[in-house]
């Protein structure tokens, strides 16, 4: 098992990364968001971080992968990311998060960052969520203490290893790479 930092890319960051790779392969320049998303992806090449995507992002990539001309680009992304799968208690935690005002989709991403694993089930949760969603980041920061108390209360009632989960840090891609380098 690896103790590397683990980061979940929300749907938009995953899309920005893929679009950034497509623009690079087309010989074009990137938007700032695409640039920092690709930069985060490149951190995996240097072995500084493990990146995860939500199941729905993988579905789109599978469709693109079937178009032969994009295989190299999509493979470059898939080689550097893993799919995060919801674990037991994911649904319960997602429901709790919605009570703090998160949209259903945001709540699922945040819940997956605590109650998410890889295909082998040998990890539990992420250190980071990468997002460009400013309202999501603001609400997460604003409600942080209350969310932590709620998670602690839930963890007191569930078995090991689920009782060991924590809250991820939520940030833009460009602010995740520096810490992962330390």
């Amino acid at each position, binding site marked *: 098992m690896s103790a590397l930092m683990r980061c979940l890319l929300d749907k938009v960051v995953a899309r920005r990364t893929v679009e950034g790779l*497509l623009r690079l392969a087309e010989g074009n320049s990137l938007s700032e968001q695409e640039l920092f998303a690709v*930069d985060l992806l490149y951190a995996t090449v240097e072995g500084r971080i493990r990146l995860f995507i939500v199941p729905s992002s993988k579905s789109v990539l599978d469709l693109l992968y079937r178009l032969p001309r994009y295989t190299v*680009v999509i493979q470059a992304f898939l080689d550097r990311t893993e*799919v995060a799968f919801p674990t037991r208690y994911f649904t319960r935690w997602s429901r709790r998060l919605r009570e703090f005002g998160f949209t259903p989709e945001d709540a699922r991403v945040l819940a997956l960052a605590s109650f998410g694993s890889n295909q082998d089930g040998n990890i539990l949760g992420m250190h980071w969520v990468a997002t460009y969603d400013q309202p999501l980041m603001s609400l997460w920061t604003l409600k942080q203490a209350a969310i932590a108390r709620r998670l602690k209360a839930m963890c007191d009632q569930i078995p090991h290893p689920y009782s060991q989960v924590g809250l991820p840090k939520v940030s833009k891609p460009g602010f995740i790479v520096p810490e992962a380098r330390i």
Partner: protein
Amino acid sequence: MGNTIVSMPVAIEQIAAVLRNIGHEERRRLLDLVPELREELRELPGRTVSQAQESAEAMRQMLITGLGGEFLSSEEPFLGNLTLGEYLALPDEARALLWDQWAENSALSWNEIDVRTDALPAG
């Protein structure tokens, strides 16, 4: 009473000189010993554009090598009866909508799985 002032046995510049020469593992160990440093580091600015551009350039080289030295054409057929150029020229909201539509028939579900009892927590 005011705070007790403890004199530093060495100058901060000397400590910095030592830190510049220690390895990755030792830096991690240092953060374990002085966790307050993590908080300070969080306030640091993120990656610079030039750092990110270096990464992007390396990725571009990797992709172009994989593509046999040829760039993708903007006329290349893409999903949704669009060309690559047409897709990338769409407004962000339109691309987001398409991405959602393409993900609708996801083969991967959000069903919960069990992890191993020795699963490594992030916390």
